[in-house]
């Protein structure tokens, strides 16, 4: 079976891919850890979008993608929560949330 995107799905997939790439870009370039977390959210949301779009346009009869998305959102929230907690702890210790400064352990 060839994987043919319908135009509609493409309309949504391109932004999601773009979002994902933006997220990756942000993740790789931003130095503030909060900003990195935001980029991460972008990536996860892009994934969510993908699932929803595939579900909606390709497999409209099921809800797998939708449910996955719901859980993914929850997971993303959990990730962020834990990450923020740790970042706060890091801030307490070193008064700094620049990711570049967290490179004491290397090689």
């Amino acid at each position: 079976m060839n994987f043919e995107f319908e135009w509609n799905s493409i309309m949504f997939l391109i932004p999601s891919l773009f979002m994902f790439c933006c997220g990756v870009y942000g993740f790789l370039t931003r130095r503030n850890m909060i900003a990195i977390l935001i980029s991460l959210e972008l990536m996860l949301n892009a994934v969510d979008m993908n699932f929803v779009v595939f579900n909606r346009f390709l497999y409209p009869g099921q809800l797998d993608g939708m449910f996955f998305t719901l859980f993914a959102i929850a997971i993303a929230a959990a990730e962020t929560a834990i990450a923020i907690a740790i970042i706060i702890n890091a801030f307490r210790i070193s008064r700094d949330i620049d990711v570049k400064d967290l490179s004491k352990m290397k090689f």
Partner: protein
Amino acid sequence: MDYSQFLAMKQEIGLLVVFLVVFLYDVFMPRKGVAADGRAYVKGTSLVAVISFAIFTAACFLCPCIYEPASAFGDMYVTTAVAATIKNILNVGVLIVLIQAMRWADSDIQVVRRGEFYQLLLITLFGMYLMMSGRHFLLFIIGLESASLPLAAMVALDKHRHESTEAAIKYILTACFSSAIFMMGLSFVYGLTGSLYFVDIASALSTQASTGLLTIAIGFVMAGIGFKLSLVPFHLWTGDVYQGAPTSVTSYLSVISKGATAFAFVVVMVQVFGQFYTAAWEWMLYALIILTITVGNLFAIRQRNMKRFLAFSSVSQAGYIMLGVIGVNEMALAALIFYVLVYIFSNLAAFGVIQAIENKTGLVDMDSYRGLCRTNPRLSFCMMLAMFSLAGIPPFAGFFSKFFIFTGALNQGSVAMYVLVLIALINTIISLYYYLLVVKAMYISPDECKVPAFKSATSERIGLVITVAGVIFLGLVSCIYDSILALCGVA
């Protein structure tokens, strides 16, 4: 909804019970103990955790019903005899980790937080259970995440230490990134097949030609799981996190998390991509194995911090474990399970010694181990056995596990596999080199030892005795491997 299907998840439920016992005990017991900084804590949490988990472990071993294949939630959850065995094996490992961690958890700094340590640990174990038994990617993801997110908190448990926090941040950020990539891959798989059930994906894939997108998706999925296994190049967090995390957490991370993920990896690869498209993912894995073993070894050579050293050793060990996956046969699978079992014991023996010394003196440098055999001959003996076992020296268990995994891998009989095994074997020489470095530091260095002679705590001793016994007897007592192989043959 038929709630009786929860009964299929006997081990998970048992684990939850243990969790609840620990949780409730820790929350509701009166705080009678007073820590050095004046904060109150509940006495006996460690003991409760260890004993309840020990009972659980023993029950799982003894109860025959858990080996029966069962499924729940419309086959999202499937358990088999093999999965039950793997879980039992992990339970044993966790039990040892818990015993070894008691001393640390009861220390003045940690005592007020130890409840969280046990709870988080049990939750991650629960996540791993789900990961291994999940036959639907949703359940798999939930398992994976609940196995990895609490770990970040555990890594950060030593919250006043900079390294601990740094490690936690590195871990959580890369873990999140990896899960994003993983889910991205999954979304493509979903888009291509229309299902997240393993079985359905496999059957859908078997009817369509391969596409670039699918290959990339498989790559992403592999990267996501490879992250947990710390396969190169997804391993970079490993060294830092192992080094920074509290040692008990590191030991947990290095054996349990790795063992569980390895099994999950087999399930995903074999069940989802196994029927079809073998060539692609096997070649990917082929490359990953070579990279993992080699790079892991190369990094391990130069490490002076014992935890970081073991981190890279565990990277390369992961490569060996993957040899059991690439073999794709029951013998290889049995070898993999056996390898994980032996690896748990060997690595925990090493971590047991490291913890004993760190708890006493705070030293984790290889240099401070110089001349250890003169001050602490027993500890150094345990360490040496662990190193020999990890290096695969007979008559210790590591030799057998390594031999069997190679035997399993070569079962396929292709030239490529011979080449792969040869590369792996040549790498064992490098690994032997760095394992011997530790032995050399302990036994051969003429220097005065920085670690004074001391008596380790009872819990540490128990842990070491168990692990050393395992290191010695797991291989020699053939029925262990035979029964694993028999199980895999059935499955």
